[in-house]
């Protein structure tokens, strides 16, 4: 009698143990996400800390990379499912035959060219020996500089011999200590830190160059990920959206949560989150404008003919396609 009770107990425990995952929701789907550090990637930090991906049944595997180039290589080699990069690096890959498209817009931030030389008022004042730091050749900062050079100096490559490649923190340190470089094309929080320094000022900003705001980064995923794992794909989009909305609706709480990650005080983080021009949004802005310029300047062979060539359906649905003249949303893609 006692033995059969014990046996029954064992059996219940074992089957109960097997049943457990089913009781607590559907099995988690793994998604490998390329992360980077910084204010721009705050939605990722928020999603990680508040377990937002888990809410959508995803099990995120975070892989940290130090530069956009590394993220792109990780996507190409299949190390990650989704990553974030500027539109120019994305287009360079697209042009070279990478089968990938834009998943979502990812954040709008102010980008600017800051100099430590009071005599430099415009691009015309740069002498051949004045170095300008950008994160890497082909980065969004480099392409913006080329755009500005075309407008103000007549040639997109006019300043190519002035550029040095430096990661943002090194560039900021070099600019502030006036070691070697005269200007730094950079993004928050480095932009804010540099502009708070006495003797540093803005030469030109992104909106002046591009004409209107554009996505600093876009989410990018391979076509095969979109085709084979549509549920994971859509869960990812929703999770990113929730993280963005949470930051916008809870700036104070977000600042407190993000401060340790950035090594800043919560007050400073809040100041940065509320800086003029910061916009945590997943909407697509300016997806096409870079392509036309880059093709004309020779950075890529041809520009995408339509947004459909470079973005997945969910993005196309947001932009829409107005019969007759293009809609407001269609116009801001150029």
């Amino acid at each position, binding site marked *: 009698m006692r033995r059969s009770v014990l046996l029954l107990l064992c059996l219940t425990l074992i089957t109960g143990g097997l049943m457990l995952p089913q009781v607590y929701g559907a099995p988690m789907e793994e998604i490998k996400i390329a992360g980077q550090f910084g204010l721009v990637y705050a939605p990722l930090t928020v999603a990680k800390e508040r377990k937002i991906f888990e809410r959508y049944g995803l099990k995120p595997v975070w892989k940290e990379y130090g530069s956009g*180039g590394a993220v*792109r290589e990780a996507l*190409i*080699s299949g190390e990650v499912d989704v990553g974030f990069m500027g539109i120019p*690096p994305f287009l*360079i*890959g697209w042009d*070279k*035959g*990478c089968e990938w498209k834009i998943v979502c817009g990812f954040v709008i931030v102010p980008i600017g060219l800051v100099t430590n030389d009071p005599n430099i008022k415009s691009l015309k004042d740069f002498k*051949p020996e004045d*170095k300008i*730091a950008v994160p*890497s*050749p*082909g*980065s969004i900062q480099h392409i913006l500089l080329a755009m500005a050079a075309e407008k103000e100096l007549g040639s997109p490559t006019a300043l*190519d*011999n*002035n*550029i*040095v*490649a*430096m990661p943002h923190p*090194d560039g900021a*340190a*070099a600019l502030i*200590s006036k*070691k*070697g*470089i005269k200007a730094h094309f950079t993004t928050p929080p480095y932009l804010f830190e540099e502009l708070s320094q006495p003797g540093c000022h803005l030469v030109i900003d992104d909106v002046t160059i591009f004409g209107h705001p554009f996505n600093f980064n876009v989410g990018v995923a391979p076509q095969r990920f979109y085709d084979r794992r549509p549920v994971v794909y859509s869960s990812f989009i929703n999770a990113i959206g929730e993280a963005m909305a949470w930051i916008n609706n809870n700036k104070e709480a977000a600042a407190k949560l993000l401060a340790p990650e950035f090594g800043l005080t919560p007050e400073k983080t809040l100041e940065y989150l509320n800086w003029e021009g910061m916009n945590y949004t997943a909407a697509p802005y300016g997806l096409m404008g870079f392509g036309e310029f880059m093709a004309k300047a020779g*950075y890529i062979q041809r520009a995408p003919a339509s947004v459909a060539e470079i973005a997945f359906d969910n993005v196309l649905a947001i932009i829409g396609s107005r019969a007759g003249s293009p809609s407001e949303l269609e116009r801001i893609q150029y």
Partner: protein
Amino acid sequence: MVKAREEKTERKKTLNQVLFIIGALLGWELMAWTGWFPPLLFPKMSQVLIHLWAGLSGGELLARVAFSLYIIGLGLSLAVVTAALVTTGAMLSPLISDWVQALMAVLHPLPGIAILPVIILWLGTGSRSIVAVIWFSSLWPLIANLHTGLRSVPTTQIEVGRNLGLKGSQLVRSILLPGAFPYILTGLRVGWARAWQASVAAEMVFGASGGEGGLGWFIYKKRFFLEIPSVFAGMILIILIGLLVERLCFEEVERRTVRRWGMTAE
């Protein structure tokens, strides 16, 4: 007779090596043709060679090579001069010799590229910093070999020189330097290799100014534009230059000096 046979085996060795390299390149091309790997990650060798040729005839690669060689030459020459001065000091005074050995023990294991962050803070970015890293990277193998080389000249040879009436610079020129020459040559070889590594690595870490970058900058830039065949073209060029310098400079010097003096085992 012996010499002729030696030359024959030498030629056979070269032929074998050349055949092996051609075979490897053909194998590469075939692998790429199978389409097992994405062409972006594994470009065809023919594509690489086409890019290499385009880069060379377009003049960009030549300018990069010229800059690399210039900057390596500068860094290496500075290192040779420094090494000569330091070793002379060490030979003259046992105290300095102790210091040099202590410094060498501490700094030799440190890769040149590791001091780059400090160099950037002190000298800023640009060619000056790259020269400094090259200088640092090649200095320690040079000093190590020079020092060991000069110490390894047998006392008897020096005494013989003295007995023949050689003094000071004469003694150095006729006994010490030839005696230490195999070591000096090794030091130069290692220094040259280290200098290349340092220049390419330094340019890849913080890049360089677009107008005055070397091959490291070329590879770095092409990487960001995803022109992988050009990345391989840059690598092949570095290999070719290495082979050329080894064959035309070091082996030639070795043949005319060390081997003629009968100082090698061969």
